[in-house]
């Protein structure tokens, strides 16, 4: 082990079923550095971290930790904590039925007796110093997701840790919360803690990190000091190829292809979630999008269109004919597909195979009394796995063992299979690597070219600008603007969101 390193992983191997998740991966973390672990979805970042924290047992390889003679074998998260490795996972791994303070201290207090008073006092102190808007005595389940994530971070940083792992901690945080987190990370760094930072946001990497390790397809690509690796190179290393010129995705003559035919329109539509009524329409072959800050009501609008929340008013037309869509099944019958924002909760059925997940929507449409034959299902599954380049061991693999990006593709395949005339994609690219993002964006434009209408929602404005020909801007649950043509620029969108262009 080198003198200044706190953690070394050598020759790590791990496979699931027949998928090789990690092959001969090395990783070194030095004292007082912030080390970005980069790679596309399915590159093995999460697996490497779970091996390190004892969630998965490694198949082969050695882990060295400062202060331990020889290789150590971490068999459970409990042991990892004791060895000084604390982790904030991408999904919130706290107990919603316990209080905030308990979630910060449970599993690591020394005594047998819980000293509530003392625990609440120190928890409140930490929450306050980090500016987290929660009370120690509050039940965690009553906090918002972002606050819960901050509590998880508070728990991790309060531990006397040598190694802090942050696995996509920023995906549910807003800008000021991210800034707070970064200040905290720099603080810890100054105290000599080694931090492993996993994120999809390149900006964030270049803002705080000192060093980058890149993984691809379960293999180590290399370790680089941040100043020696410009962005473009980082991306091409992650993808393993030179990046397509992003601006080429959308060609200039696209807009002419949109016909005047209106596929869907709604007037004064409202639901229990989208309270203020809105008007909306989409043409055949058009890609439009809802934009706005998180929580501005983007998702609520499209959920109202799909009938996912209880519709409370408004009239809707499909191809000029009046329709009533009060539940998702109605929408599906009229040829509307909806890819939900929260794929874990609303999208995948984790224990079912990839094949069954793909045919699910079609099966619902056909009714349960006309089952799709195995052979037919197999054919559909194979077709879409090839079409969307889904990385899976077989059609029988349970979907939960796939990486996030591939799960998303499976759900996309599910809707494409029903051949909808209007497809709503709510954050289809969240938590997905750049390569897959581009693939999905290309696919959206291809679908539009084939005459389908698509509504696209994304938190990343440049992604929307590349794909959509019309943007509806939301603020505080209301439509505040509509941009198209020459107005589709980053600054224009930003100023409309901010309310500068009234």
């Amino acid at each position, binding site marked *: 082990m080198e003198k200044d390193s706190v953690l070394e992983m050598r020759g790590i191997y791990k496979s699931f079923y027949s998928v090789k998740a990690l092959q001969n991966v090395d990783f070194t973390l030095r004292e007082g550095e912030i080390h970005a672990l980069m790679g596309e979805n399915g590159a093995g970042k999460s697996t490497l971290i779970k091996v390190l924290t004892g*969630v998965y047992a490694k198949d082969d390889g050695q882990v060295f930790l400062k202060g331990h003679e020889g290789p150590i074998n971490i068999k*459970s*998260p*409990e042991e*990892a*904590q*004791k060895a000084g490795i604390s*982790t904030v*996972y991408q999904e*919130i*791994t*706290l*107990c*919603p*039925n*316990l*209080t905030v303070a*308990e*979630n910060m201290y*449970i*599993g*690591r*207090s020394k*005594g*047998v*007796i*819980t000293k*509530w008073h003392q625990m609440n006092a120190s928890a409140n102190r930490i929450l306050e110093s980090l500016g987290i*808007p*929660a*009370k*120690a*005595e*509050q*039940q965690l*389940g*009553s906090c*918002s997701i972002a606050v819960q994530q901050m509590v998880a971070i508070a*728990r991790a940083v309060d531990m006397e840790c040598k190694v802090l792992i942050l696995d996509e901690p920023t995906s549910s945080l807003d800008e000021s919360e991210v800034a707070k987190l970064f200040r905290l990370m720099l603080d810890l760094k100054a105290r000599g803690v080694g931090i492993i930072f996993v994120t999809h946001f390149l900006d964030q990497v270049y803002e705080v990190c000192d060093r980058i390790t890149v993984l691809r397809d379960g293999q180590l690509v290399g370790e680089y000091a941040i100043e020696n690796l410009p962005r473009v190179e980082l991306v091409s290393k992650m993808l393993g190829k030179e990046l397509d010129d992003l601006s080429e995705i959308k060609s200039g003559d696209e807009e002419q292809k949109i016909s005047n035919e209106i596929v869907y329109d709604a007037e004064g539509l409202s639901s229990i979630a989208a309270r203020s009524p809105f008007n909306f329409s989409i043409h055949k072959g058009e890609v439009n999008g809802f934009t706005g800050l998180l*929580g501005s009501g983007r998702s609520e609008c499209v959920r109202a269109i799909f009938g996912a929340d209880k519709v409370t008013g408004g009239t809707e037309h499909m191809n000029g004919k009046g329709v009533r869509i009060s539940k998702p099944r109605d929408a599906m019958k009229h040829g509307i597909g909806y890819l939900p924002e929260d794929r874990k909760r609303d999208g995948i059925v984790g224990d079912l195979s990839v094949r069954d997940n793909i045919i699910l929507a079609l099966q619902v449409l056909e009714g349960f009394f006309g089952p799709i034959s195995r052979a037919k299902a197999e054919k559909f599954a194979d077709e879409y796995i090839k079409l969307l380049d889904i990385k899976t061991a077989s059609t029988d693999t349970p979907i939960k063992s796939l990486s996030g990006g591939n799960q998303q593709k499976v759900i996309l395949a599910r809707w494409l299979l029903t051949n909808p005339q209007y497809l709503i994609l709510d954050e289809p690219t969240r938590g997905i690597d750049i390569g897959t993002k581009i693939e999905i964006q290309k696919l959206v434009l291809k679908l539009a070219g084939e005459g389908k209408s698509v509504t696209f929602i994304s938190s990343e404005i440049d992604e929307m600008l590349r794909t959509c020909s019309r943007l509806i801007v939301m603020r505080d649950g209301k439509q505040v603007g509509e941009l198209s043509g020459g107005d589709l620029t980053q600054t224009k969108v930003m100023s409309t969101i901010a309310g500068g262009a009234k």
Partner: protein
Amino acid sequence: MKAVVDKKTRRLAPMSDTNLLLTITIVVFFAMYLAAMLFIGRGFLRVQTFFNILNENAALIILSCGMSIVMIAGGIDISVGKLTALICMSAAVNLDYQGGSVMSAIFLSLAIGLAFGIVQGALVAFLDIQPFIVTLAGMFFAKGMTTIVNSTQFNVQNEAFVALKNTRIYIPFLGSVNRRGVFVPAYVEIGVVVAIVTVIVLFIMLRWTKLGRSLYAVGGNPQSANMLGINVKKTRFLSHLLCGLLAGIGGFVYFLHVGSGAPSHATGAEMNAIASSIIGGTMLTGGVGNIIGTFFGVLSLSTIKNIVSLLGLDDAWWTNITVAAMICIFLVVQSVVLLRKNKRS
């Protein structure tokens, strides 16, 4: 957005689900008892009626405590009723046919309960088998073993035991005046003392000890609990072990109350224990519950049964239907309250 968040945090932290359900249970119990005193009067006006409810249910209170513990940890144990019968029969045989003493009978009861807890807990925790299935097997095993130990009912004659059974602990200053104008003090049996001590010890255990809090964490979300550094398997194992041990204690208390061994003893006690836990605010989904609530759950269940029989509706089916209605009402009230609360936040 920002202003809303700030306002929310300045307000007092909202009550946890566990405490909210506990409050509902206690309020409902007192309201029910008060209503019975006002509108039915008769027996409910005598202090001893309340203590008789305790005397009758001391064993059920202890069994329900065990049930609540496994339920809080996200499990269930349906073997406790038949296990109680097995313990009664074994203790009875030990006392009368094998020349055992009260101490040896107590020891035997605890050992049987603990053995069941250990085996069932190991199967659930380390082999990851559904607790329902494991304890279903345990239930059949206990049922079979009871008849192997002794197939017929008999009353225990052992003098020391009978003396203990008839011991009454009088409550100072409480009692009622009988028809002849003599003051009769209220009393409880020894089992009630055991039950109360059990409730207090377990309440403290669940609220303040590491194990207690781990039980809630595991019941709330086992994956997260694991990530938080809690030994989930050990916690699950201990929940069943505790339930088994409590079934041992409860079994002996039951035995002390009835003073006999019979294969039909404590039939359906596991269902009463589950019902009491649910009425007491323990959720089948795990992670939420309170021992004090369970205590009041048992009392509520017994009180409603008493009310039904005092109203002259003594048929078994009336009692059952009332109990069913009560569980339903409690579940509806609980979910409505929790839904409203979670919508607000």
